[in-house]
């Protein structure tokens, strides 16, 4: 998985609790992304980062926040988890952005009860 780890790999939580997912890369790539994958929807971008402390919203950012204090780490936080955020979350990295493809981590399966 191109030097990308995600933690935790599985999590079950209750509605209203905060949740933080971590993505860690060893490739020193500048760009990092958080996607969610749901049946019938394909991968949808939540947030992305184009450098340390530089982040922006994606297509489905409501209810999510991110932080990137180091090149290698990109955190995704669900401030108050809802059942609609039950999904599989993938982190991806890219060396150059548009002219380079994206490489994906192994995913985190999150269930919000």
């Amino acid at each position, binding site marked *: *998985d191109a030097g*990308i780890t995600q933690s935790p790999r599985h999590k079950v939580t209750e509605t209203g609790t905060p949740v933080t997912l971590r993505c860690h890369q060893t490739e020193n790539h500048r*760009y990092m*992304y958080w996607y969610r994958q749901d049946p*019938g*929807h*394909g*991968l*949808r*971008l939540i947030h*992305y980062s*184009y450098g340390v402390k530089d982040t*922006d919203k*994606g297509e489905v950012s409501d209810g999510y926040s991110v932080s990137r204090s180091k090149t290698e780490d990109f955190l995704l936080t669900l401030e108050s988890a809802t059942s609609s955020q039950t999904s599989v979350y*993938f982190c991806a990295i*890219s060396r150059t*952005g*548009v*002219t*380079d*493809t*994206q*490489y*994906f*981590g*192994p*995913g985190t*399966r999150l269930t919000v009860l």
Partner: protein
Amino acid sequence: QKEVEQDPGPLSVPEGAIVSLNCTYSNSAFQYFMWYRQYSRKGPELLMYTYSSGNKEDGRFTAQVDKSSKYISLFIRDSQPSDSATYLCAMTSLRDNYGQNFVFGPGTRLSVLP
């Protein structure tokens, strides 16, 4: 109409068959096209990456882009049971400076039967 359409399958073929997987898209600005393979409960892994129109071959895999028809294909020759997975197409344009505008198809589930 969705920006990228892909038949979800499942598609079942016998081992050794030639498989054709396809995506259609509506945005004529797309210039970069990718195919990813995703095994069950794993992350997508890049198979093919092509720019603009034409063909690209890598082993048993051939990616084809027809920009005039807004249609891309992935061909798998001599398919193997290990090719059983979901195949996602993805695409973007030069305006996508940070890679934030990748559009992914929902994926086609392929089963290669021994």
